[in-house]
């Protein structure tokens, strides 16, 4: 959606003088990119915290490190 067909929803027609090229004084397409970057970043953070696993060797390594602490 962000870099694809969703752009058709907000893209101002360059030939239409009434087209909404700015929102709060910021270019609409730029604001769209920032919005989607926030969505993508949120998805990556959730994946990092909830979905991405580490291999057993990492878990074993972490356990050894923990066990080795004074």
């Amino acid at each position: 959606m962000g870099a694809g067909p969703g752009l058709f929803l907000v893209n101002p027609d360059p030939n239409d003088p009434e087209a909404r090229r700015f929102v709060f004084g910021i270019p609409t397409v730029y604001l769209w990119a920032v919005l989607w970057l926030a969505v993508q970043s949120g998805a990556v953070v959730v994946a990092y915290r909830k979905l991405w696993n580490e291999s057993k060797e990492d878990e074993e390594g972490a356990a050894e490190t923990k066990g080795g602490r004074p």
Partner: protein
Amino acid sequence: MIAAVDFAEVALVVLGIYLVVLLGFGVLAWRRGRVSEEDYYLAGRGQGFIVTVMTIMATFFSSAAMLGVPGNVYKEGVAFMIFALNLPVAGVCIYLFGSRIRRLGRRRGYVTQGDMIADYYGDSAPLRGVVALIGFLYVLPYVIMQIKAGGHLAQGMFPDAEGAFEKGALALSVVTIIYVLIGGMRSVAWTDVLQGFLLILGMLVAAAATIVTLGGFGGFFEQVRTIDPAALSLPGPSGTYTPWKLMTICLFASSGSLVQPAQWMRYYAARNDRVLKRSALVFSLVLPACFLFGVMLVALAGRALYPPEMVDGTLVPHPHVGEFDQVVVVMMKEQLPEMLGAAGVVMVAILLVAVLAASMSTADSNLHALSAVLTRDVYDRFLRPRASETERAWVGRSVIVLAMLLALWLVRAGHDDADFAPLKMIVNLMFAAIGFSCQLLPVTIDMLFLRKGTRAGALAGMVAGIFVVFLFTPFPDLLLGGGTDGAVAKTMQPLKSLFDIGFTGVVANVLVFVVVSRFTRKVDSDRVREIGREME
């Protein structure tokens, strides 16, 4: 304007310090290293988080990040800013591909992409040869473009010096060769840490300076309001960036760049999964910000202050900017000294060194990877299968020197003669380089996740993909004697205007891969199970 003498002196001092520090890293890495192929190419597979994330980011961001991408925003306006959305996709690939590649690489002792692909599908000369060819088609144009950027930057830093372009290109090449030769992957990665920090800092500071100079965000966006309507919407003034094209670029150019030889070797070199998982997170959050809140804003301000002009139906840069790619350099040299005085001059010099860092960090990683690919997948397999490790190490170093000399020669020839056809072709080929790299995506995804394809299918698919991408380069027309804009280019133009060229190659690749795999001998099921188990 900057006083030329003062700026040249400051730039020389900053550049000198930077190059000495790089050589120092090279010597340190050499002292820490061990005399083995695995250590030279993969730093003993023990790289930690900071080194891994910085080397992946610095390798990903070439001179294009500071020159080419802002240059395109300056030319096409906000349409090209959507390009920044490819970066979180690329970041996710670091974890999805990287963690599995690392696990298998460590267990089975792989060094190159060819090692893994040949081990899974069954070793064959054509398969290794095609994988090595894809690596070569990606690496060489990238190295050439970095050297060229070094030359142009030297011209910008020392405009009054005689032969600045040649000296700049030579200095970049010589220093890069020295630290790659003596320190291998460890040296490349350590220098990437410094270069990565400089690059990120440079991209963000450039934007902050521009916004402050224009009177804060209010003044900045007031200037942006003066931009012509075509540059505030898609597909941009030249009509290039449609949503479909941007979407395919964001999906395929990003993931294709993360399976190129240098990045693949960085997965092998990472200490554990956690390192790659954190690297994926930082990459996804930091790099898009460097674009959308960094250099892209500088270019947008440049578009407002020095708008390009339409001459005979072609968009040309404002005379003050000179070339599209120079917009950040021009903006920095204009704005910072005006705002900060003498400190601004020092900052401009540091920012220009950051551009140099972007070039060197990509050139060194790609040269180092090309050395591994040509030594292990070509020399060791086809020319001298019984070569000792010491012999292979020297061959690897020779490859680095020869590749750099070839690149330097092409850059020099292209600089002396603007119509020099091979360089013109290679410049165009740079845009196809990622397209070639994308042709490893179907094989990578099959090997790591699906495990349905066959060796013949993988080989046929890659050849089909390379062939389709090749049709988008100027080579077919040159081979047919039709100049650089002949019948093939005209035939491919409609497709090129619709989609990313890597994507079109991948479509052909996947179709051929699936059909051929259906009718050819399967990969041994025991090996598939064993490799699948080792990857989990």
